[in-house]
C-alpha cells in the first residue's frame, strides 16, 4: 500500500536511491547536501551496501566509477564546490560508460559563495562542466515527491544509458519537507543495465546494442573486460585514429538522443488546468491575447506556479522541465507561437534563458526573471516580468549584466 511520508527533499533523494537499488555511496560532506550522506551511511550497510566518505569529491567520483564497473548501482551527493571537483571523473564515467547518479543540491556560488543558501546557477555546469564533447542528462525535481521519483528515474536512466545522470536539486527543495506518497516496495519500475550474454571471449564491452548502449558486465563475473579513459574501440582498447574517435563521440551523444522517450517529460500547466473548471478559457486554437509562456524548473517553478494561482485572470502557461538536459526543446518549441512572449524564471544571472532563446529563435520576445542573491525568487518578482514591467536582462534595471546575448541572436 502507498504510504504517506513527510520527508525532507534530501531524505526523499536517499529513499529514492535505495528504492532504485543503490548500494554504493562515495561522497564528501557538503552543505546543503550532507543529510544524504548521513542517511546513506546509516541505510546502505544495513542493506549489505557500502557507504564510504572519501578524501574529497575527486576521489568520490572516481570511487563511483570503480564500484559501478564492479556491479554497483552507485551514487553521490554534493553541492557547487564539490560538483566542480567531480567534473574530472564525471568525464571518466562518461567515457568508460559507468552508470552512476550524482545529486547536486545547488547552492549559491561562485566558490564558497553563500554556503547555506539556494541557487540554480549550475545549469550550464551540469551540461558542460567536464571537458570535451559529451552528453549530459540532468533531472530537476520541483518537489520533495519528485526528489524521490526523479532520483529513481535518474538511476533507471543511468543504468539503461550507461552514463552518469545528474539530479539538480537546490537548498530550498533539499531542505524542505513535504508530503510524499511512497509507493509500496516492489511496485516501482526499476531498470537494470544491459548485461552481456554469450561466450566471454566474444564480449566487447563497447559494442553497442540496438539502442546504442553496450552491454555491461561486472568485475568478478565470467566476463573479463577493460575500460579506459582514452579514446577506445569496441574492445575497450585505446585507439588514436580519427575514425574511432569520431564514432565513439557520435555514439555517446546519440545513445541519449535516440532514447529520448525515456526521459521524464516536462510538466505543462496553464491557469485553467491548474485551478480546474470554473475558469473560462477558450479552447484550442483560440488562445487569448497576451498569453505568456513561463519557463521555470526546480524551486523557481514553485514560485512560477504561484503566479498562476495568484493571477487566474491572466493567461499564463507554465512550462516546467523535469529533464533539464537534454533540454526538451521540441516540447517548448511547440508552445511558443500560442503565446505572445516567453518568460524564463531562474535563480541565477541568466543560464536557462539562453537555451530558451535558442528554441524560441526570435519568434517571440524572451524576458527573464532572475535572482542570484541566495534568496528564493518570489512570485511577485516573476509576476512583474510576466506583466512586462521588468526584464532582468534588458539592461534597464541595472540588476543583471548578462543581457549581452539579446533575444535576436
Amino acid at each position, binding site marked *: 500500500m502507498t504510504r504517506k511520508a513527510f520527508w525532507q527533499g534530501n531524505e526523499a533523494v536517499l529513499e529514492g536511491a535505495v528504492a532504485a537499488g543503490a548500494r554504493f555511496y562515495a561522497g564528501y560532506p557538503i552543505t546543503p547536501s550532507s543529510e544524504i550522506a548521513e542517511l546513506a551511511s546509516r541505510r546502505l550497510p544495513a542493506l549489505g551496501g557500502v557507504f*564510504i566518505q572519501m578524501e574529497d569529491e575527486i576521489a568520490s567520483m572516481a*570511487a563511483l*566509477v570503480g564500484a559501478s564497473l564492479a556491479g554497483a548501482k552507485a551514487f553521490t551527493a554534493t553541492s557547487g564546490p564539490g560538483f566542480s571537483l567531480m567534473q574530472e571523473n564525471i568525464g571518466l564515467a562518461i567515457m568508460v560508460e559507468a552508470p552512476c547518479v550524482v545529486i547536486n543540491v545547488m547552492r549559491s556560488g561562485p566558490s564558497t559563495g553563500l554556503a547555506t543558501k539556494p541557487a540554480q546557477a549550475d545549469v550550464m555546469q551540469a551540461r558542460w562542466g567536464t571537458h570535451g564533447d559529451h552528453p549530459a542528462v540532468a533531472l530537476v525535481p520541483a518537489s520533495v515527491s519528485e526528489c524521490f521519483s526523479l532520483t529513481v528515474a535518474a538511476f533507471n536512466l543511468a543504468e539503461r544509458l550507461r552514463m552518469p545522470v545528474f539530479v539538480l536539486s537546490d537548498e530550498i527543495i533539499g531542505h524542505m519537507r513535504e508530503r510524499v506518497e511512497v509507493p509500496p516496495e516492489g511496485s516501482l519500475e526499476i531498470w537494470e543495465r544491459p548485461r552481456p550474454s554469450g561466450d566471454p571471449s566474444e564480449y566487447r564491452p563497447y559494442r553497442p546494442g540496438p539502442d546504442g548502449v553496450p552491454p555491461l558486465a561486472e568485475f568478478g563475473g565470467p566476463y573479463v573486460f577493460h575500460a579506459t579513459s582514452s579514446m577506445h574501440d569496441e574492445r575497450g*582498447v585505446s585507439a588514436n585514429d580519427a575514425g574511432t574517435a569520431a564514432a565513439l563521440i557520435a555514439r555517446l551523444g546519440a545513445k541519449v538522443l535516440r532514447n529520448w522517450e525515456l526521459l521524464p517529460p516536462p510538466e505543462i500547466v496553464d491557469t485553467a488546468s491548474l485551478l480546474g473548471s470554473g475558469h473560462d478559457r477558450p479552447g484550442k486554437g483560440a488562445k487569448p491575447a497576451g498569453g505568456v509562456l513561463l519557463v521555470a524548473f526546480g524551486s523557481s517553478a514553485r514560485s512560477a506556479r504561484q503566479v498562476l494561482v495568484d493571477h487566474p485572470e491572466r493567461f499564463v502557461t507554465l512550462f516546467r522541465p523535469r529533464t533539464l538536459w537534454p533540454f526538451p526543446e521540441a516540447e517548448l518549441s511547440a508552445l511558443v507561437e500560442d503565446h505572445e512572449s516567453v518568460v524564463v524564471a531562474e535563480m541565477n544571472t541568466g543560464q536557462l534563458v539562453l537555451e530558451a532563446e535558442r528554441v524560441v529563435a526570435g519568434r517571440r520576445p524572451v524576458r527573464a526573471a532572475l535572482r542570484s542573491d541566495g534568496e528564493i525568487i518570489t512570485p511577485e518578482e516573476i509576476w512583474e516580468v510576466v506583466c512586462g514591467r521588468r526584464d532582468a536582462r534588458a539592461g534597464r534595471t541595472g540588476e543583471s549584466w548578462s543581457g549581452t546575448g539579446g533575444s535576436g541572436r
Partner: protein
Amino acid sequence: MKDRTAGPTRSRARGYTDYLDEAALPHIWCAGCGNGNVLKALLGAFASRGLDPRMTVVVTGIGCWGKADDYIRTNAIHGTHGRALAVATGVKAYRPELAVVALMGDGDFATIGGNHFIHAARRNIGVTAVVANNLNYGMTGGQYSGTTPAGSLTSTSPYGHAEEGFDLCALAEAAGAAYVARTTAYHYRQMETLIAEALGVDGFSLVEVLTPCPTYYGRLNREGSAPEMWRALKERARGGSFGCLVRRDRPSFAERYAGVQAAARAGTGTEVGPDAR
C-alpha cells in the same frame, strides 16, 4: 597475517604469459626504461599467486607506467591522472573478494594523487599499489614530480629543483599502510617476490620500484647511458632501505566495514540525519 589469495584461487600452475596480452606488444616504453621489467615481475607475481583474471582488477593512472594495463589480460580500468587509487578503492570497497592492483608512477601516486595515497593507506583499503618511481614525468617530457630530488635538472627545473622529494615508503608507513616495500627494476626476483607478498596482504600494500628514465631524467642529470643507470640502481640497493620495510597487522577496511554492516543489520548506531537535529 591473513593471506587473501591463498586457497581456492590457486587452481593450477600459471606463468606470467597467462596474464600478458602478447598481441599488444611491442610495448611503448623507451629502450633502457625499467617498466618492462616491472610488468614482467608484476605478472609473475600474479602467476605465483594464481590470480584468476576474472577476479583481478588492475587500475592504472596516466603516465608511462599507467599504460601497463594495455598489456595485461585481467579486468582493468585505465582512469584519470592521479585517481587510480580512488577508483581502486571503489572497486575494492564494493567487492572485497576481488584482487585489486593499482599501477602508478611517481606523478600519479606521489604528486597529483598524493591525497588518495595517504588516505588509501590510512583506511587500509586492500589495494596493492605498484609504483614505478623514475623521479620525473617521462611521458610528457621530463618535468619534475613529487619524488624529484632537490637540485635535479628537469624540463621544468632547468636551474636545479628547488624542492625536496618525498620518501614514499616512509610516507606510506606514517600513513598506516599494512605492507611497504622498496626495490628496483634491476632486482627482478626481489621485485616479483615483494609484489607477490604484497598481493597477499589484507590491507593497503605498497611496492615502490625505482626505475630509470634514461630518456629524460638520466640525460638531463648526466647519469650516463641506460646501462650505467641500471648499474647505479644495482649499487644503490646495497645502501639499505630496500626489501620489505613494513609488515604489520591492522584490520583492513573490508574487515572493519563488515563489522559496520553487521552493526547496521543489528540496528545499532547513533541517530543521524535531519530528524536528529
